[in-house]
């Protein structure tokens, strides 16, 4: 009898949870600004093999860059940049910032390959998402982020490198092409401002 009542209650509980959850997710219910990069639907598969749309990161400021794991030269510097940004923040600020590295090489950047970099570079999964779009979506995300790339015959890429700062609604509020362990101080200032926004 007891079991039955729980079973009966379960849908009601689920419903209640949904209501509570949607109340907390209130900002997501407001329409996206027209200049938000989240206007582009973008399913991503991350280092844990989980697939989610990048819009699920709405509500938390993000540092975003494009990369690929087999890249020898520039991409380690992109990881360095993300770490340098984190390093410049207080622990409280750091907790409010996500870092999203989006692959331009989804064919080779499987969850295993992405996890390989995350482990090697000791990237805290609480803050860092390394993720691959679907092959057909790479041009589009590069388009909204202003990244240019070309795949070479040997599978490597020519690409421009940029670090972008998105506010909680996905608007690009800062951009730097200076990558590596020394990040443009103006970019860091913008990060301080964005994580302070309520």
């Amino acid at each position: 009898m007891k079991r039955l009542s729980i079973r009966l209650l379960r849908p009601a509980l689920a419903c209640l949870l949904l209501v509570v959850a949607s109340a907390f997710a209130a900002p997501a219910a407001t329409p996206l600004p027209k200049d938000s990069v989240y206007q582009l639907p973008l399913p991503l598969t991350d280092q844990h093999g989980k697939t989610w749309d990048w819009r699920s990161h709405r509500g938390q400021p993000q540092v975003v860059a494009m990369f690929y794991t087999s890249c020898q030269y520039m991409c380690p510097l992109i990881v360095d940049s993300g770490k340098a940004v984190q390093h410049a923040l207080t622990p409280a600020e750091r907790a409010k910032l996500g870092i999203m590295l989006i692959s331009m090489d989804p064919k080779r950047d499987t969850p295993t390959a992405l996890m390989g970099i995350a482990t090697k570079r000791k990237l805290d999964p609480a803050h860092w998402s390394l993720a691959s779009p679907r092959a057909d979506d790479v041009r589009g995300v590069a388009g909204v982020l202003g990244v240019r790339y070309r795949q070479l015959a040997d599978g490597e890429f020519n690409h421009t490198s940029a670090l972008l700062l998105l506010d909680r609604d996905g608007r690009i509020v800062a951009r730097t092409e200076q990558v590596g362990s020394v990040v443009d101080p103006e970019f860091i200032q913008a990060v301080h401002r964005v994580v302070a926004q309520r």
Partner: protein
Amino acid sequence: MRRFTALLLFVLPVAGLCAGDAAWVKVPGGSFRSALKYEDGGIAKIAKFEMQKRPVTNAEFLTFVQAHPQWRRDRVATVFADERYLSQWPSSTRLADEAQAAQPVVDVSWFAAQGYCQAQGARLPTWREWEYVAAADETRRDARKDPAWRERILGWYARPSSGPLPRAGLQAPDAYGVQDVHGLVWEWTDDFSSLLVSGDNRVQGDADKMKFCGAGALSMDDRENYAVLMRVAMLSSLEARDTTNSLGFRCARDLP
């Protein structure tokens, strides 16, 4: 009988004008030497594909916008199109007149062009596909070495672009049966943002390596080919949301 033929001659072009979509032209595959110097080899294998016979017109694009209102100029997300998007139309859902309806659509962003082609179950042509088709004149698939061909294209670039655009599909088809590749509007390619071109060959040192991740920018293998050079210069200067009043598009699709 003669009267009937005359009637047919009158009706046919009108029927062509009223048909919603541009016809598709089959382009056979082949190997092709690009005018661009790719560090990973200049000769490309082009797989057979289909291309729209002429650029997409305003009328066709209006039909798309009506079916997909998120692409109306008053509703479009500004990440996908700049403030000039479709600004040549008198309103977001109306064209000026029949002349405008038959003109190629311009002031469209890469995102909008891509959205249109996707809605047709197609895609934008790749740069290599475009260059492959653009090498042809009316009789030859590769007329690029002919100085007269080059002169003619240069002549188009020299003409001022202030007047109204002619109708799409007026020019003689090239050797593939494709029209208006030159002489009407410039066109988006799917991979326009792969054109990492440095304007000057001399700047291929370390500074460039920083910008382009361990490899140099593209440079021109054939500096006499102004037609290609100018397209590359233009496309490589654009962002995906940009629009210009001389840039349109047409769609392509794979062939099994």
